[in-house]
């Protein structure tokens, strides 16, 4: 099946989307459009098939963020550039369970990476971070994400990091 990835549109069919995770389902159905168009806190990209171009099969959400320089522990600030640290947040990524195992997850991730590279070239960005479910950490690690220390073991997610330079290195011969 040919897959198209594009920004979420108002008339996209999201009601039937089910990735077997309520928070991820609810985000797409209730918040993604509002967050994208009205309160501007994240852009959602959806995967649709060529034969049903409004039926959402998977999605991811991206936003930019930055860590203020003065929020780093003092002993680490010395030698840092006098700027905040810009980054991209891969906030969510999900595929409808009925379309699992078809490689849609990696295709969505690749699109997220390509957008991140484009953004890093337009406005600057140092890394991508994501809060991965603990049982999905190995999937993200396979594509280069590294866990950051400091996450509480009792939290459902683990913050992970991918250097934009690592991503860009894949495009060189």
């Amino acid at each position, binding site marked *: 099946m040919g897959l*198209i*990835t*594009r*920004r979420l549109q108002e008339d996209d069919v999201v009601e039937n989307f089910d990735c077997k995770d309520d928070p991820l389902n609810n985000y797409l159905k209730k918040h993604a459009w509002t967050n994208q168009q009205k309160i*501007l*806190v*994240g*852009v959602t990209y959806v995967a649709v098939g060529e034969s049903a*171009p409004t039926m959402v099969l998977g999605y991811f959400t*991206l*936003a*930019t*963020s*930055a*860590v203020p320089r003065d*929020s*780093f*522990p003092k002993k*680490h600030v010395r030698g*840092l550039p006098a700027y905040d*640290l810009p980054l*991209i*947040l891969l*906030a969510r990524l999900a595929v409808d369970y009925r379309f699992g195992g078809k490689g849609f997850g*990696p295709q969505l*991730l*690749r*699109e997220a*990476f*390509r*957008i991140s590279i*484009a*953004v890093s070239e*337009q*406005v600057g960005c*140092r*890394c991508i*971070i994501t809060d991965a479910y603990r049982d999905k950490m190995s999937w993200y690690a*396979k*594509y*280069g994400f*590294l866990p*950051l*220390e*400091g*996450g509480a073991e009792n939290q459902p997610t683990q*913050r992970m*990091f991918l*250097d934009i*330079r*690592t*991503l860009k*290195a*894949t*495009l060189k011969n």
Partner: protein
Amino acid sequence: MPSTGTKRAQRNHTRKPKFQADLAPIEDRIVRSLKEELQVSSNSDFMSDAVALFQWAVGERKRGHKIFSESTTGEREVLVLPRLERVAPGALLPYVNVAWNEKELESLIDSTRAEPARPTEALVRLMRG
């Protein structure tokens, strides 16, 4: 009189780059059909027109313009091509605040200061696939 080396350099300078593509049988049929419909006889002319069209489309999306077809009854269908969407200004993302604890910040700064990790094989395959 220019030397042989200079002549070769001039020849190289004026030589047009060649473009070669592997087409699946279905794509080959589409290209032949399009050439017939457009009454284009050479691959070079076909390529030249295709590049001009693509260049125009990229320019329009870069300016944030939508590209759509309009039927005789006024129904519009917007062109969405993932590669074109990458050049659209809409690719810029909104800003959000992320909460960090001290340990995560230490780990983050250590990670950004370190040499970037080598891409994993899966990542290379993903990006080049």
